[in-house]
């Protein structure tokens, strides 16, 4: 480690620049993919590379590389020279303390210690559960794990080494009845070891069951409904519809949104608090330090119904005159970090699901997410399935339920917040600026929202 530190320090020494950092990453991945009965992919890969960033007179320059060797000082000089040649801009970096730390993963959580045969047996077992369910015609099951060690050194004196693990799986079941084809998928994944994936049979069985049940579901008639959304869909809403608007790199380029997202503006009931928290133990979006060497934090985005904060990297924090929040993240050494969420969730409150059902005369209980689109404050999300609520009771399953609306109006229409926060991770992640998938966590309790526009497909 001392060798690496002196190699990196050598690369940054003598640069005529206000700030520079260098990040080296070594990682190891295993991936297994089943499609139906066929093992489609099984492989392991090894990566090593890094990224140099230089900041000078308001401009950034960066270079990523695979060869970690004595040519690094030359590469760093090239980047610094390129940045020096640029016209000055009125930008500077927010303060982040210089730190020295070494974060390690407990040996029991290290997926490299688990033989490939065990990983294969696990995902095959889950895939077989799907395949033997009557009505399921095809499947896709994916296992993935990674172990990563990053070393970060900055010209301000930070030196941080950090290990991270991810393990997870995803299962998708396709059910068919004649020309009626329905599918359902779900995933599980955290910054924890391989053992956290064991005993997930109930989740897998549920995937198969919902896919088959969807064959009998009818498309929902379009209209306005009172809806109860499940923790997963509510979490996706918190991340996609609202969380991205809190990212300061975006806000700093969009004046109108900056006005709409000003601290103090009310968008919800007193009970509504939305948080981004990179410090939650074991969650998919957790980390100790971000890729600028700033410690992960808990940041309240909405507190008591009012805008309370934004997510920052060092430059955006300085530009907006706010605190650096430790949200500068890169998917790998190939990229410079940009402002990203970590674990984004809505805090739980007092209501239980029965309270919510009791207060809905006619509505929908909407579950899961198939993805969607957001454009500024407008959003459209497809759910995975829903059930009609009639006189406070869940009745038949319906499908093709698409929710759309304006995020600020929708936040204002949240009437009840449940007591049952669930956090989700899974295998996928967030995509932004060509960097996908970045591991993130999201979650919420059940929410009751009045008058949501539901489009049939």
């Amino acid at each position, binding site marked *: 480690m001392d060798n690496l530190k002196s190699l990196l320090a050598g690369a940054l020494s003598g640069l005529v620049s206000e700030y520079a950092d260098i990040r080296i990453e070594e990682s190891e991945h295993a991936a297994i993919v089943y499609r139906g009965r066929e093992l489609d992919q099984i492989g392991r890969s090894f990566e090593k590379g890094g990224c140099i960033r230089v900041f000078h007179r308001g401009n950034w320059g960066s270079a990523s590389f*695979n060869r970690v060797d004595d040519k690094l000082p030359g590469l760093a000089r090239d980047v610094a020279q390129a940045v020096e040649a640029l016209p000055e801009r009125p930008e500077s970096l927010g303060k982040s303390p210089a730190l020295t730390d070494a974060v390690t993963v407990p040996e029991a959580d290290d997926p490299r210690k688990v033989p490939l045969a065990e990983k294969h047996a696990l995902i095959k077992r889950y895939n077989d559960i799907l395949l033997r369910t009557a009505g399921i015609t095809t499947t896709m099951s994916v296992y993935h794990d990674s172990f990563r060690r990053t070393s970060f050194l900055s010209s301000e004196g930070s030196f941080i080494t950090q290990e991270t693990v991810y393990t997870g799986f995803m299962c998708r079941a396709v059910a068919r009845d004649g020309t009626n084809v329905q599918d359902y998928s779900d995933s599980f994944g955290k910054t924890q070891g391989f053992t956290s994936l064991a005993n997930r049979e109930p989740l897998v069985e549920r995937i198969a069951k919902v896919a088959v049940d969807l064959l009998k579901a009818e498309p929902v008639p379009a209209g306005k409904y009172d809806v109860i959304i499940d923790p997963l869909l509510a979490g996706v809403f918190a991340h996609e519809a609202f969380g991205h608007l809190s990212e300061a790199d975006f806000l700093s380029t969009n004046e109108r949104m900056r006005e709409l997202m000003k601290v103090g503006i009310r968008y919800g009931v007193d009970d509504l608090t939305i948080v981004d928290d990179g410090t939650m133990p074991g969650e998919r979006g957790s980390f100790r330090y971000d890729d600028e060497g700033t410690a992960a934090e808990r940041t309240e985005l909405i507190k008591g119904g009012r805008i309370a904060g934004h997510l920052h990297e060092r430059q955006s924090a300085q530009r907006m005159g706010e605190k650096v929040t430790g949200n500068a993240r890169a998917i790998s050494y190939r990229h410079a970090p940009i402002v990203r969420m970590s674990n984004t969730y809505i805090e739980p409150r007092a209501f239980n699901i029965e309270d919510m059902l009791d207060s809905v005369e006619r509505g929908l209980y909407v579950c899961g997410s198939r993805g969607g689109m957001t454009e500024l404050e407008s959003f459209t999300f497809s759910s995975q399935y829903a059930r009609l609520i009639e006189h406070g009771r869940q009745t038949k399953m319906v499908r093709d339920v698409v929710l759309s609306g304006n995020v600020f109006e929708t936040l204002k229409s949240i009437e009840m917040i449940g007591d049952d926060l669930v956090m989700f991770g899974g295998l996928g992640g967030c995509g932004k600026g060509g960097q996908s998938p970045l591991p993130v966590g999201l979650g919420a309790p059940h929410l009751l929202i009045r008058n949501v526009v539901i489009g049939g497909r």
Partner: protein
Amino acid sequence: MEDRVLALAEARGAQAEVFCSDGNLTTVEFRAGEFHSQESRLTCGYGLRVAKDGRVGYSSSSNPDRIEDLVQAAIDTAAYGKQCRFEFPGPCVHPAVKTFDNRVIMLSAQKMIEWGRELVDALRSRLPELKLDVTIARSYRETALVSSAGLDTRFSRAVLELYATGLVVHDGLVWISEYENLSSGAAPAIGAIADRMEQRAILARSRARLVTGSYPVIFAATAVPDLLSPLLVGVNGKQLEKGVSPLGDRIGQKLLDEKITIADDGLRDFGTRSDPLDAEGVPRRRIPLFDRGVFTGFLFDLATAGACGVESTGSAARDYSAQPQPGPSNILLLPGTAQLDEALAGIREGLLVHECIGGGQSNVLAGDVALNVSSGHLIENGKVTGRVKDTMIAGNVYEMFANVAAVGDTVRDLGSYHVPFVMFPALKVATRD
């Protein structure tokens, strides 16, 4: 390094192939008329494919300290791998193709920034309301391949491309994009790019209306790839192997209009996907896909060719981190005889499409497309008038290309597509007007 990996794999009783990709990418970017960033990316990694006990294993690494582990992982995965139905190719003579120019390799980032600034300045004076993003990217990649069959070769490619996207806010948002393949080493024709963008920005100022119906539609060269890409899914040997290509048993049948001749040409000078050999060391060639409307064949790599009982067409594509897959190189739609002015003159009411979004969101394997026309103009009595809004073209590309009114006489170099305009006599156009 390649030789060491090969020797280690062979020492464990495997036939092996080592693919190494070593390259760099330099990108300069302007956003909304301002310089935004300069970035470089240096990439070097190894992919090891082994055939052991009749099965294929794979692993990849960009970490030279983990070569032993790379070899062990490839051998381990072979135990679960697919049956090996091909042999690694041996040495061959490289076909002639120009894939780099020294002016491109030596080009400085400063020069790239200068070009970007020239384009920004040229348009700023003409169209102050235009918000212009410019990206200029230069990539250089050296590929090395060694195998147990005696292959030991390397080849390189340098690509230089300019992308410009202008945003005009005028009765909604209008995006205007331009592209130049500069790989042959010539400097960009900044004036001509600015002229084209200006012309379209001016046309975007006047709004035109077209009611839903069936109209003659001209797809400008820039929009033709949206229609060709579903065909390229159909001709992919992987889809044939899986038994899902709609072209499965149709070689020799006339499926498209006789004005349509499409080829995949990996040997086009300075094509952005040109190489002497494919990513498995099989010589690139020009592969006819549709000849005057008749379907002539699929694109194969070694594995899909082996599974289908044919020879590889030299169409393997890959990055070091993944196993090869068949894929298109440079796609040519051969020019016809029509001139744009004449084609326009014959239209009383129709649509000229420059750019679409939403390609790839429908059942592309079946050839279905649902394209949102993001930049398109009304044609009235032979003249291009204003911009149309909220306009969709949905259909099936196999049906669309079966009835073509005209194919343009001039091919536009769009990097991996070299295509003229195509005019269809009648397509369904849906609008909100």
